[in-house]
């Protein structure tokens, strides 16, 4: 049974006089939804997950499952399951007993547990491994067991704390797919912590961005990536081109001339716009939203050349299929449908 999760004005500090690690944070996750919590190390992601899991208690605010507060409910009866970065399989138990540890804690009979272990192991391609010891499995296999150990308890909320971070990229990709399938199949409400932008984008239908314990953005993942709501979020998702100007007749007036920007409406007022780096390109022909400049150093990035261009807007980074001679005059296009207004402050 999946439930909606509401985090309402939650704050947390580990000791009474310690620093506040979560600041007045509110977040909603729909029943059966998968929200990724993205942020750098020390941003409070794992702490937030610990609060939902019941490992820590919030110093302020409330956490609700299906509209009912669970802050006072012990971890064991909250109906949550947690998967950590390290699988933490019990090394002295068989793989099967690990899978059904939660069921044993609930008093489920041995025969049922054995059948459940086989069923879950088969679901993740580990048929016949119930009798093995965890140390006999690879890292990816161990993490699969950790995942089904959590799901076997049929949790109301699944909490994933960087569960794929310690795996190599190939295994990680396969497990991302498996994880998505399992979450969709079981319909469990899921909160997944990650510091990896690409993983957050590929896994979560929504992404909540945390910086220094503050919720900076909570958006549909694609929106957060392409049109982040504020400058902090934009910088975290890799945007470095920000242009300020004044809005006149729907265009942004800049030192390099007017720029057409989709969705810019506040006439006569200063505005800040941004654009993703992959949309800033070198072109051969002048036109709308094309700015002239002088090429700086070019860096080969594999699929493209990253060219620094000095313009009246300052230094811009543009993409090109070829290197550009340093000092050469060049043209940079900032497509109007890719430029978007953005809030300067969070």
């Amino acid at each position: 049974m999946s439930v909606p999760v509401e985090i309402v004005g939650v704050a947390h500090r580990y000791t009474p006089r310690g620093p506040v690690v979560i600041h007045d944070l509110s977040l909603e996750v729909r029943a059966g939804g998968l929200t990724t919590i993205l942020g750098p190390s020390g941003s409070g992601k794992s702490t937030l997950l610990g609060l939902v899991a019941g490992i820590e208690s919030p110093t302020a605010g409330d956490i609700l499952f299906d509209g009912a507060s669970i802050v006072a409910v012990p971890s064991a009866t909250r109906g949550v399951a947690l998967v950590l970065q390290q699988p933490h399989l019990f090394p002295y138990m068989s793989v099967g007993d690990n899978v059904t540890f939660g069921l044993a804690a609930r008093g489920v009979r041995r025969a049922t547990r054995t059948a459940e272990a086989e069923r879950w192991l088969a679901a993740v391609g580990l048929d016949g491994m119930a009798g093995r010891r965890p140390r006999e499995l690879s890292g990816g296999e161990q993490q699969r067991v950790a995942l089904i150990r959590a799901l076997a308890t049929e949790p109301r909320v699944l909490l994933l704390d960087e569960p794929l971070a310690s795996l190599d990229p190939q295994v990680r990709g396969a497990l991302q797919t498996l994880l998505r399938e399992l979450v969709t199949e079981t319909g469990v409400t899921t909160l997944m912590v990650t510091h990896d932008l690409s993983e957050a984008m590929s896994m979560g239908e929504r992404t909540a961005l945390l910086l220094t314990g503050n919720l900076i953005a909570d958006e549909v993942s694609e929106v957060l990536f392409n049109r982040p709501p504020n400058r902090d979020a934009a910088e975290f998702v890799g945007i470095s081109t920000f242009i300020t100007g004044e809005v006149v007749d729907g265009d942004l007036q800049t030192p390099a001339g007017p720029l057409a920007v989709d969705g810019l409406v506040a006439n006569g007022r200063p505005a800040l716009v941004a654009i993703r780096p992959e949309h800033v390109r070198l072109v051969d022909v002048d036109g709308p939203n094309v700015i002239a400049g002088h090429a700086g150093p070019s860096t080969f990035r594999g699929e493209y050349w990253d060219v620094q261009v000095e313009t009246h807007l300052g230094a811009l980074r543009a993409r090109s299929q070829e290197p550009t001679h340093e000092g050469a005059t060049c043209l940079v296009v900032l497509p109007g449908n890719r430029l978007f207004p953005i809030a300067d402050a969070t």
Partner: protein
Amino acid sequence: MTAPGRRGVSALGWLLLGGLAVLPLIVIGVQALATRWFFPDLVPQEWTFASVRGLASGGATRSAVFESLVVSLTAALASVLLAIPAARSLALGRLRHARLVGLGFLLPTVIPPVALAMGLNVVLLKADLAGTRAAVIFAHLVATLPYAVLVLTAALTRYDVAYERQAAVLGAGAGRILGRVFLPLALPAIMVCAALAFTVSWSQYLLTLLPGGGRVITLPVLLLVASDGGNPTAAAALALATAIPPAIAILLVVRRLDALGAPARPLR
């Protein structure tokens, strides 16, 4: 260091080990079977199994072995039971001023054994316990507990509490976490702790003689009496017998640790 250098250091290590541990045992073994062995003879002039036979058939020895086993096993068990909560609190940072409390636990080890035994004896006399087995066990506990806490605390600093959090979130209560998570994970450390406590208790002489008031006779007490008795052969045989149980305890622990693949797995 060069390869010949490493080999030299290794050889020196083995020589020291042989000189300090094996050679005295060999000498005591030979002495236990010798009737006439005078300096500077390398081997005895006459051999005998009388002392070994006497040891095996002697009622006093059997009684002392039984007494030693009861006292040391009880002291070791009590040490482990008390050391587990103490070490958990000290190692997992759940205690204010943990370092100070840890030092407090070590205090009995820095007090000279004679002073410790006399002090304890006064306490036990006032409690009307002196001369009983319980008094001896209590006195041994004072000696063994610091080591047990020290060893277990050091081991538990590497204990990963995330296993317990994982179990709690999966629905395990406190009892299941203790029995199915903590104890199995900490088992190697607990076994080492128990073996050490047993060994420390087994070799206590003053902390047996004074609190026991001469009524509780363990093997070390018997050994000391035999050493003063002018019969080096009997004393040597008794010394060998005294050395066997701790050696067995250590060997059992080592074998069990090998079987567990410990302690790397359960501890972080």
